């Protein structure tokens, strides 16, 4: 057994959220630069230039790239041979979120009751925490600060098996088309095909966190990613939604076994400020 203190967990989660909010990944930056060279709309090219400049300011000045610093989502992979010492694991994660958002000048965007009070909790907690038990004695955290301009444009649909590949592609395209300029294109589109309704949604969220430019290791799904991206970038929505050939930077598709009667598809939309970070203890 390897001991891991809750203090270290808090510190690790805190630093991951600070990095996620200040440092837009090199994968996104490279893709934005490439898109700016290839974008057909002059206004679209200018908007991509503004986005690149914005991300540079955030990185160098250590300020939030977007004012919507999101709801904190944490995927924790806990090694079965690790022993957590010094307190409650979930509370240690929440404390990391609390410290990042208060000390890092990040916006607190969480309300305690979604329907009646809608009172801001004041510290951006609770986070959405998923834990998985994995082999080994380490703990890995994948965190994302998920903005809601794009989250609101996401969708799950329970297709029938007969809908097939075309049904999946149509649903992805329809979701992005309906969203139009609202979710701050260019987008990173996370998709999961299969599982149950909830499993598809969770894996779609994880898919938004996969670096752009990587592909599903299954060549059939990698081909689906390319085809979906091609169709989305023909919609004309473009950077900022004012028209153009860069509506999405990537479509990341994951899949999971499903029931004989089902073909669930979840499409989680993420904006160009795709904020995620990983850390291992």
């Amino acid at each position, binding site marked *: 057994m390897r001991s891991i203190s809750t203090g270290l967990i808090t510190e690790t989660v805190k630093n991951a959220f600070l990095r996620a909010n200040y440092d837009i990944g090199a994968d996104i930056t490279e893709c934005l630069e490439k898109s700016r060279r290839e974008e*057909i*709309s*002059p*206004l*679209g*090219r*200018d*908007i991509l230039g*503004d*986005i690149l*400049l*914005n*991300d540079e*300011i*955030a990185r160098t*000045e250590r*300020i*939030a*790239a*977007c*004012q*919507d*610093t999101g709801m904190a989502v944490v995927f924790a992979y806990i090694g079965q041979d690790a022993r957590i010492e010094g307190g409650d694991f979930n509370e240690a994660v929440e404390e990391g979120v609390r410290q990042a958002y208060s000390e890092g*000048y*990040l*916006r*607190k*965007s969480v309300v305690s009751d979604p329907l009646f009070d*809608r009172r*801001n909790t*004041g510290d951006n907690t609770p986070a959405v925490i998923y834990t998985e038990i994995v082999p080994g004695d380490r703990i890995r955290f994948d965190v994302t600060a998920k903005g809601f*301009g794009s989250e*609101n444009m996401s969708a799950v649909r329970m297709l029938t098996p007969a809908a097939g590949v075309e049904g999946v592609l149509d649903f992805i395209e329809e979701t992005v088309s309906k969203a*139009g*300029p*609202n*979710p*701050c294109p260019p987008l990173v589109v996370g998709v999961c095909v299969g599982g149950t309704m909830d499993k598809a949604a969770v894996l779609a969220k994880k898919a938004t966190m996969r670096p752009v430019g990587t592909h599903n290791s299954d060549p059939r799904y990698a081909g689906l990613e390319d085809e979906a991206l091609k169709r989305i*970038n*023909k*919609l*004309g*929505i*473009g950077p*900022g*939604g*004012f*028209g*153009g*050939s860069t509506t999405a930077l990537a479509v990341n598709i994951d899949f999971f076994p499903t029931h004989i009667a089902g073909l669930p598809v979840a499409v989680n939309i993420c*904006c*160009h*400020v795709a904020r995620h970070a990983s850390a291992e203890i």
Partner: protein
Amino acid sequence: MSEERKRLQIPCSEEEYRSLRAGDRLLISGTLYTARDAAHKRLCALLDEGRELPFDIRGQVIYYVGPAPTPPGYAIGSAGPTTSYRMDKYAPRLLDAGLKGMIGKGLRNDEVKASMKKNGAVYFAATGGAAALIARSIISSEVIAYEDLGTEAVRKLEVRDMPVIVAVDPDGNDAYEAGREECRAALASL
């Protein structure tokens, strides 16, 4: 920027608002008020009760933003636009009360566009997600109402050369629709 941007002092005259065209790229300077979901709900409740708003809304522009906290040495934290459609339910009420401009991002519904036409109002878009960049054009920020709402409080902002695009003009022309249609057609023929 590849295109010349016109400068506009806000608030401006009714004629100046009416002269703006969808697709115009502007650098705006002057005074803005911030409000988003929760503040809109309260402002409309005041109007429904026949009470005075916390600021004189006539001729003014509201920026849909909930800024990040202000770091030391800055006038304001990162402050990009939030998605405007969530304010569609409230916007016609405020436009009827004299509001002349809104800054946000994303589509507006037909009711808002009809109300804009009736009232000679403009909907501007700022680049979503470019919040650190936009904050540089905000030179001061002061909470003037609903401090309890935190980031959703109503603020009075002074801005200098804030870059915006006229998304919907007072005649109802929509730059989002036009831009998308033009590019969709161009991409289809490639």
